[in-house]
């Protein structure tokens, strides 16, 4: 396998380039469409790569008339708040799980794993009722049920990371009179910072991408996040592809930045638990 032939190497690179091309092509195509006036999106010019009359009209429409930035803002609020409290709660519990003996620990871990496995749809009805009765529909409180999709994996990733930290470090701290809080915040957290950061990124992406909960709980456009708001752009009778593609480009940019900046952490989070070391 080490001394592979040149032809296999070329073939390998061919496959990789094809793979990358397929990955990128849809984005490339919507980017083109977003600059086309609606007359060029249909008909003979639909498949033309360079628009005859490139326009920024689609962008000004979605940015200023359809107010897509409001939903980007909502997504930021919802994802950031979710990330903050999920990381806090997950790190506290992961610390105890990785450091202390207690009855029912195996059960707790099985429960957390179970929660990450069951179909999310099972919580939607009762949570809708709960929010309706408490008058929380169309608010940012939607971040609380986001925990069902983010918290289990956050705890899971953190436990794995905390277990890698040698006990000796915190034992010294405890001898010096550090409390449990102090040990977690001053010793464990800084040492496990990469793991904490990975957890935060994964939580943020999961919250950013969540559709079902916001679609159900926040029917008011004022509180809708990106995945829901962008789908509200297609109306019952016609689909304004120019505007939709422009909006897509706008909302994909934050994701793109996150991927470019944090790809190492993302891959670490993705493969966590799936790979035994």
């Amino acid at each position, binding site marked *: *396998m080490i001394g592979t032939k040149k032809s296999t*190497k070329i073939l*390998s690179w061919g*496959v*990789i380039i094809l793979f990358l091309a*397929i*990955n990128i092509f*849809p984005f490339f*195509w919507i980017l083109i*469409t977003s600059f086309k006036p609606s007359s060029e999106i*249909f008909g003979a010019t*639909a498949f033309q790569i360079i628009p005859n009359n490139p326009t920024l009209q689609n962008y000004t429409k979605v940015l200023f008339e359809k107010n897509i930035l409001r939903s980007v803002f909502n997504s930021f609020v919802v994802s950031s708040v979710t990330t903050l409290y999920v990381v806090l*709660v997950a790190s*506290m*519990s992961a*610390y*105890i*799980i990785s*450091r*202390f*003996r207690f009855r029912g*620990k*195996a059960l*707790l*871990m*099985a429960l957390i*794993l179970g*929660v990450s496995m069951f*179909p*999310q*749809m*099972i*919580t*939607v*009805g*009762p949570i*809708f009722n*709960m929010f309706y009765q408490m008058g929380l529909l169309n608010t940012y409180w939607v971040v*609380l049920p986001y*925990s*069902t999709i983010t*918290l289990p994996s956050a705890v899971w990733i953190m436990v794995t990371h905390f277990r890698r930290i040698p006990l000796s470090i915190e034992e010294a701290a405890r001898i010096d009179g550090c409390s449990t809080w102090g040990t977690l915040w001053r010793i464990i957290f800084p040492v496990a910072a990469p793991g904490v950061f990975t957890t935060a990124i994964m939580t943020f992406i999961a919250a950013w*991408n969540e*559709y*079902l909960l916001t679609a159900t709980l926040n029917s008011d456009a004022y509180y809708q996040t990106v995945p*829901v708001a*962008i*789908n509200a752009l297609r109306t019952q009778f016609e689909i304004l592809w120019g505007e*939709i593609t422009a909006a897509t480009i706008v*909302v994909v940019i934050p*994701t793109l930045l*996150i991927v*470019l900046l944090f*790809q190492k952490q993302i891959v670490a989070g*993705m*493969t966590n638990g*799936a*790979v*035994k*070391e």
Partner: protein
Amino acid sequence: MVKRMTFKQFLFILPLLVIIAVFSIYPIVSSFVYTVFDYRIYDQQYSSLYVSSSFNPARFYENCDYIVYYLQDEATVVDEAGKAEIQAISNEISAFMAPYQNQTQNQTLSGPEAEKIESFIATIGQRLNTVYNQYPNAEFYHQEDMPILLEDMQKSFIQPNFSGISNYQRLFKDARFWGALGITALFMVVSVSLEFVLGMALALIMNKAIKGIGLVRTTALIPWAIPTAVSALIWMYMYDGQSGVVSNIFAAVQLIPAPETMLSTFWGMVGSSIISDVWKTTPYMALLLLAGLQTIDRGLYESAAIDGSGTVNTFFRITLPLMKPSILVALLFRMLDAFRVYDLLYILTRGSLESLSVYAYKLMIGQGYYGYGSAVVVAMFACVAIIAFVFVKVLGAEVVGNDE
């Protein structure tokens, strides 16, 4: 040394326990409870879980109020004797309905109380009939409305809607449910198989071609990282009957009869949703498997090569067995993910292709059938449990890492 947990440390996991209890356990238990009721949120008589009979005073009051109001109109078209009788009826209703004003909570009634209300409704009905029959030639304004109001008044009595296992029985006879189950299973099996095969091939290639891996990885992450709702929309455009580039290419190479096929026929929709899912998730699968591949000791390959093992042989004898743990975990989580597919189908096919999640959502949120919709969801829950059980117990997937 691992210490025993004390109460102080218990406080550290308390937030987790509370959140899981409120937003995961409680909703799951509630969903199970909903399944044994004929619970419909958009129908007043079924809009809660009623174990015993109860009475809706607000509904009763509202109907009484309408009758009194209408009677004023009716009094204008009859003679003095009729006016007096109508006034008498009106007074009686007003007196009877007074205690129920401003009561919004449903209440449980005692037997005699319920009978009293029932007989009141019956008496009013009779007396109204008498008046209407007495003046066959008078042009009443609301003669046709009265029976409707009286009937609606009857509905202030709420029967218990506990329905036992009938929602589950209905499930077994519901062709739409079995269809959705079939679509979900098909989607899950085909998507995950394709993703696995393609992901494995890519992982093997990437494992050898280390140069430029960063770029490949970044690009591969993008489809995975964008919201499914957005990628579904992107693909909706790619498959569009008129200006969809993918559907037009497929039609040009005779893969499909016409570009419209992709989003308007059953198999077109199955194909398009699978392609979209494979596009979005293969990179994820490839990176997972690549991570698994990289843990294999390269020395093993060298010894295999020295022993004269061929590429194919090495793959099946060394790579696959050593990767079994990572493969099983990756497959399990991907299958569960594919099984609950919702946003992709709901957006890409506008819900025409019904997975179990889509069907349950339409039943519950669309039509308000919480009881029956919950039964569909509980069936999904059971399927997920079976899949997880098979993977963990039969195939031996190590989902729970070694403790301590």
